[in-house]
């Protein structure tokens, strides 16, 4: 039972990550390989605020969101005017820069040693101390984020993002400030990635930089590719499938050393196959062309 609750909690965390990246991939049509960086920034900011300044979980989470949004401008401002493949490379660069900082700024982040002993969230005087209650707690936050992202996606803002995805020049000729809209979409996606960062830190009560690597960014992106983009259901289907998949592999009885690589190979193959045979993913609306 605890095992199942653990998986469901991870799904709650990843759903927010994936849905926020969906705003970029499925709506604006931007491939970003920096989502794990924002996830990590959120985790570290909230953890440091809780541990160094003694803030509560929710205020720390909200400040982490604000901080992550501000940091998102350092990459979106220089790179969002550029062609698609340049942007991908720039976002990858940002991911690597953030990882390097988390890993090497030992005075602040303790680098590879990680930060242990993160206190459990306390909510109206109740400590979220069992795995069941953490599942509920993360579920509530995931539901709120999903609701907000749904509202944003279906608003005129979401519509104009899709218009940009389809034809930037036509959208500009209709008076839409493309660069500003893209930068805003990027900031929103980054801000929503910070929340699961805080949830993840509060759940494991330990963070180190290896949870926020390039491969993690690739993993988040591959969930969208496989599940599908441009709506709410694609990313959710993708998340559930991709979080359960390694557990299924474990049941098959692959040795642990091979299992991690095997899992990655399956992700890679799935991306290739989906791109070839089903570019809208399993349940997406936006069909990559």
């Amino acid at each position, binding site marked *: 039972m605890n095992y199942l609750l653990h998986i469901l909690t991870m799904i709650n965390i990843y759903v927010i990550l994936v849905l926020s990246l969906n705003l970029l991939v499925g709506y604006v049509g931007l491939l970003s390989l920096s989502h794990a960086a924002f996830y990590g920034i959120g985790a570290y900011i909230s953890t440091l605020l809780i541990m160094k300044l003694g803030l509560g979980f929710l205020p720390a989470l909200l400040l982490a969101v604000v901080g992550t949004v501000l940091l998102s401008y350092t990459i979106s401002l220089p790179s969002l005017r550029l062609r698609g493949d340049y942007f991908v490379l720039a976002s990858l660069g940002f991911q690597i820069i953030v990882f390097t900082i988390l890993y090497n700024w030992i005075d602040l982040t303790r680098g590879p040693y990680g930060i242990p002993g993160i206190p459990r969230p306390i909510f109206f005087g109740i400590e979220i101390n069992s795995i069941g209650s953490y599942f509920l707690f993360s579920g509530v936050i995931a539901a709120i984020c999903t609701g907000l992202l749904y509202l944003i996606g279906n608003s005129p803002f979401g519509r104009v993002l*899709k218009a940009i995805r389809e034809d930037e020049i*036509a959208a500009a000729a209709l*008076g839409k400030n493309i660069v500003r809209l893209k930068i805003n979409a990027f900031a929103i996606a980054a801000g929503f990635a910070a929340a699961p960062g805080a949830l993840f830190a509060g759940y494991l009560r330990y963070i180190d930089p290896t949870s926020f690597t390039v491969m993690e960014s690739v993993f988040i992106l591959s969930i969208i590719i496989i599940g599908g983009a441009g709506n709410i259901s694609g990313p959710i289907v993708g998340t559930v499938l991709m979080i359960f998949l390694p557990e299924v592999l474990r049941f098959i009885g692959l040795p642990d050393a091979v299992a991690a690589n095997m899992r990655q190979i399956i992700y890679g193959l799935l991306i290739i196959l989906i791109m070839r045979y089903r570019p809208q993913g399993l349940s997406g609306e936006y069909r990559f062309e």
Partner: protein
Amino acid sequence: MSILELENVTKAFDGVLAVDKLSLGFDEAKITALIGPNGAGKTTIFNLICGLIRPDSGAISYRTKNITGLAPWHVAQQGIGRLFQDVRLFERLTVNDNILAAFKNQTGENAFLSVVVPWKVVREERSFLERALQLLEFVGLADKANDLAENLSYGQQKLLSIARLLALDADVLLIDEPTAGVNPTMVASLLEFIRRLAKEGKTIVVIEHNMNVVVEIADWVCFMNQGQVESFGLPNEVLGDPEVRAAYIGL
């Protein structure tokens, strides 16, 4: 009087002059046709006005305001709309969404407000939907409202792009080859639209290769060659000019 003016505008691509010290004005509520051989610089002029490319020198002004070098979205918000030759629809959006995306001043285009005051956005959206339906009825696509734009025929796509342009509610419409690729029965109604728009006070600039169309709708005709205005005047004057005939029309 001229509402939109180009003054001494020059633009070169990789050293080749596409537009050469060109000065040209467009009259309010009139239809001006740009004609000339391929490569004369007609579409480049549209791109320059729209801000998609910047002139190397010279100035572009709209209602006496200098708009040279403004970003395309900014130019559009001033009231200059563009119909692209290759329609450029938002293909994987519905017909309805294509129109809705074009309206100006949408509260809900601000993500923050769309979450904070959703009721206001919903109310606004209702009135936009009504206007979108009117526009779709105007071009005869009301029954296709929920189809994806990519599934329309080319003629229908052209009509949709016109409806989308109208949703922008611009005062100046730059129309690039409206009749190209449209079947003849539809051409008549298309021209009828354009004339009606001019009567309603829109300033229209149209690039057109079909001389019959030019004669039928244009108030002014501008014949361009090699990035310069060779001849400007009433349709009969310009099209009757033996030089123009010799150089281009071959009538």
